[in-house]
């Protein structure tokens, strides 16, 4: 029985980072076997503590505002790719620019990423609209549909460049490397965009909008969970910046269906909740 319990708790300790496990597993497991508390409760506390410890290790490397803006830049680039599918179809080089900007940003090389993001931006005082441009309403008349306003995509494509410019001003060690899944997903979207025909609104586009909103809501729930665990403001900052750069332009500069307005309201509420959670002092116990 004791051996089985010990094996169970040692498995639960896998939630902790490797270094922490090496230093503390024996002592923690010995205490668990001595206390003999409810197994489910003790296991949950170990998993929760392990995840919190992993998050603390990651957040220790950079100030909260730099980490938050770095994450926001990647998220905004990914969102720009989803909004710019027609653009990537019409102008394949824009897909290459997005992937390059995302790859360099994920590697922490924001100053190198900035020129690629700037090359992507449309004219700052002329919205993307016209026969060769992409200010066309290809979402229309369906739940979660929206008509592009002429400025929506313009604002969304400028946002990554602005964020990278702010990050480029920062002095100090290079930003840590982030997951290469970000540029990989954008590359997949750029490749997929080539196969599409944007002469007519595609049948799948309401599902695509729904999928994007679901991903955004799922990401915000993860933001809430991470913020609640370690009370660090970086994820709430990233969510707020993302909301301001992508969701807000779509909500304010386009004509939206009631369903889409409700979706945006949900995203805004989750972001506000993350901000409120980040402002509460971390509980020591």
């Amino acid at each position: 029985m004791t051996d089985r319990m010990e094996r169970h708790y040692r498995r639960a300790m896998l939630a902790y980072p490797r270094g922490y496990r090496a230093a503390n597993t024996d002592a923690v497991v010995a205490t668990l076997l001595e206390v003999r508390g409810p197994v489910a409760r003790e296991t949950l506390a170990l998993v929760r503590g392990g995840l919190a410890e992993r998050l603390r290790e990651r957040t220790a490397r950079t100030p909260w505002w730099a980490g938050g803006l770095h994450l926001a830049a990647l998220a905004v680039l990914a969102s720009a790719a989803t909004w710019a599918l027609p653009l990537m179809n019409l102008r394949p080089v824009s897909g290459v620019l997005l992937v390059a900007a995302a790859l360099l940003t994920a590697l922490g090389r924001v100053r190198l990423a900035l020129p690629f993001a700037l090359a992507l931006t449309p004219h700052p005082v002329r919205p993307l609209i016209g026969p060769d441009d992409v200010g066309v309403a290809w979402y229309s008349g369906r739940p979660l549909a929206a008509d592009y306003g002429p400025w929506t995509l313009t604002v969304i494509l400028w946002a990554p460049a602005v964020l990278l410019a702010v990050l480029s001003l920062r002095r100090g060690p290079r930003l840590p490397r982030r997951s290469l899944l970000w540029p990989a997903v954008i590359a997949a979207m750029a490749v997929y965009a080539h196969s599409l025909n944007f002469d007519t609104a595609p049948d799948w586009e309401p599902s695509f909008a729904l999928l994007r909103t679901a991903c955004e809501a799922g990401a915000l729930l993860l933001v809430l969970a991470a913020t609640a665990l370690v009370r660090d403001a970086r994820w709430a900052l990233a969510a707020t910046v993302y909301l301001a750069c992508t969701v807000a332009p779509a909500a304010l500069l386009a004509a939206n269906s009631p369903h889409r307005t409700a979706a945006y309201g949900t995203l805004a509420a989750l972001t506000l909740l993350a901000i409120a959670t980040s402002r509460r002092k971390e509980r020591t116990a």
Partner: protein
Amino acid sequence: MARPMTEPTYFILAALLDGPSHGYGIIKLAERESGGRVRLAVGTLYGALDRLAEAGLVALDREETVQGRPRRYYRITDDGQDAVAAEAARMRAAALAVTRRLPPRTAPA
């Protein structure tokens, strides 16, 4: 003004005032002294001890081997004593704000 201490933190520090103690001892003492309100899971306790050690309120005292298993003892630091004493004083002042205004209860005949 310092933020109030959480109840678990308060009773973890209180449990160490009598001298260095190990995880099991801290958990049991905290539960007893809090009247059963503070029941710490082991993972939560060690996370709290890590944060308190970072804040300089507790420190690792020693590690022993009992029945082939390691047992760590933690002690409260001078800063930890000051912090928990300040919290106790704060709570006493807060309690006085109410108790001095309540009329004394007379026992039923």
